[in-house]
């Protein structure tokens, strides 16, 4: 439709910009209309990004401030979600924890998906023996469940925020590479890749300029799908004491910090951080699912 309009109407740059913008608006409108659940997810994701960015402004207390007079305070008007064993405000810790979750989730998902994108496209482009070798290597990495591979990386490099990001990135790379490769294989057969090669372009240029733009859809899908997985994985590692370390506020860590021992006297300590994790992962998952349906229905069922 957009193309027709461009041909029929005089295409001044102004017009082009307008059609482009209205195309975006249309796409967003369609998404909201046909994917209500996905829209809810997207709204929650946006809300969480806002919360993470403005943590200093909106959090009622300093997340690290201890207050030994108000230990284990049940939720009330001064501490909306109660306080923990050190008298730290749980709501503030959850707000700052969203920053940790977003930072780890986004960085790990971005690096993992991007590395996977390049590996997948390069593997499909070069084909033959290189492709076979890369595929076998990915097979080997895929024979470890996510958390086992992440824990092995932790065993080697230790704990801490940057190392957790690395530990989560490693198992994500082969999963993205696998999906991107299968899309790239189809693109490689389209004559324009041969044409580009006939023009004498370098391999790098063909991969980056001619093949990458055509696998953006699976890449974006994997990127959103990974966010949820990365947040869940970070929470699990931190819960086990092998991820983000105290005193950094992190949701998984809040569940580990005595939540079980204090379960009887202070249940709010265990309930709210877990809810935060579930809602965050839920939002990313439903948004990712709807995005997948809209961008590339063929990938339905791909994890």
């Amino acid at each position: 439709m957009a193309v027709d309009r461009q041909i029929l109407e005089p295409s001044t740059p102004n017009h082009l910009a307008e059609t482009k913008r209205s195309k975006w608006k249309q796409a967003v409108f369609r998404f909201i209309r046909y994917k209500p659940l996905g829209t809810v997810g997207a709204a929650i994701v946006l809300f969480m990004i806002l919360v993470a960015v403005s943590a200093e402004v909106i959090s009622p207390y300093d997340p690290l401030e201890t207050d030994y007079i108000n230990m284990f305070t049940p939720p009330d008007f001064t501490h909306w979600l109660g306080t923990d064993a050190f008298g730290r405000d749980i709501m503030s810790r959850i707000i700052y924890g969203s920053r940790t979750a977003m930072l780890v989730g986004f960085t790990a998902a971005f690096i993992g998906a991007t590395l996977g994108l390049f590996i997948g496209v390069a593997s499909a482009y070069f084909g033959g023996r290189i492709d076979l070798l890369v595929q076998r290597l990915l097979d080997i990495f895929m024979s470890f469940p996510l958390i086992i591979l992440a824990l092995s990386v932790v065993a080697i490099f230790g704990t801490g925020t940057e190392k957790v990001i690395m530990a989560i990135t490693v198992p994500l790379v082969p999963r993205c590479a696998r999906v991107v490769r299968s899309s790239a294989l189809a693109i490689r057969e389209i004559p324009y890749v041969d044409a580009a090669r006939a023009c004498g372009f370098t391999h790098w240029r063909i991969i980056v300029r001619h093949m990458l733009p055509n696998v953006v859809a699976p890449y974006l899908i994997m990127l959103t799908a990974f966010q949820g997985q990365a947040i869940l994985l970070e929470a699990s590692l931190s819960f086990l004491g092998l991820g983000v370390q105290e005193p950094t506020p992190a949701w998984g860590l809040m569940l580990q910090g005595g939540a079980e021992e204090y379960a009887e006297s202070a249940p709010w300590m265990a309930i709210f951080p877990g809810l935060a994790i579930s809602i965050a992962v839920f939002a990313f998952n439903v948004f990712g699912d709807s995005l997948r349906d809209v961008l590339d229905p063929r990938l339905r069922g791909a994890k």
Partner: protein
Amino acid sequence: MYRYIIRRILLMIPTLVGVAILVFVLMRLLPGDIVEMRLASEGAYVSEETLDKERARLGLDKPIWQQFVNWMWGICRLDLGESMWTGQPITYEIGIRFQVSLQVAVMSTIIAVILAIPLGMIAALKQDTWVDYAIRIFSIAGLATPSFWLGIMIILAFLIFFTWAPPMVFTPIWVDPVANLSQLIWPALATGYRYSAVATRMTRSTVLEVLREDYIRTARAKGLWEKLILVRHALKNAMLPVITVIGLEFAFLIGGLVVTEQVFNLNGIGKLFVDAVGNKDYTLVQGLVLMVAFVFTITNLVVDILYAWLDPRIRYQ
């Protein structure tokens, strides 16, 4: 069929060897040497002599290729070396914990199947009604809820409403089946929820696909009883991908158990793994990672064979 199985087994060997090489290399990536990391990392003074003795005990003084050959030879004899923490053989450490983990894994699989197949089927039949939406939200929530938090919530609920706490000691099923089952049903439920969510989604989408097939229309056209169509024609054909997912997720359960066993204080493989990472017990981590990868690969193989057996089109490709 036999040719297919043999080909799949042969294809598995390079992956398993690759896994072994990767695990071996991983542990050599450590910044510094494992004996120093293990014994002197907390800043305590350890004499060079002690370090050398420990290196010799673990065979780390030998050239790297010889270490690898020794390790591989050990694997072939099912000898994974000794734990650096307890000094016991790794196969022994795994052996005493295997039963708990296996039982929880099997129980969560049963829970998942019992929940997933009817739920997925109902969701598909009532597509786009509120029932479908409710089931879909229930299953997406299952994917989002961390199993360790679900576990904590279960314990919390028991403590608050029934003042019942999970027992600290494990009772084997042959000693007291009731005590055993009442202890393990909750960790199985915590891990099984996520598992059932994956399977429910798969059941729903495959049933939807199958219902659009020509043979369903044919069955309806010849006036077959609707219930018979659903069970005989639809469900049977929709089961293939569901079986695959159940099989693959079974292998992933090992990952889920890592956190659930921690919550429920079960001394299984998952807890052993976390403790090994925490204790910097490198030989044990190495052995466990290898075992998990092997179990995972073999499960994949079994699923593939099962699939080929159920669907003849695959084995003739």
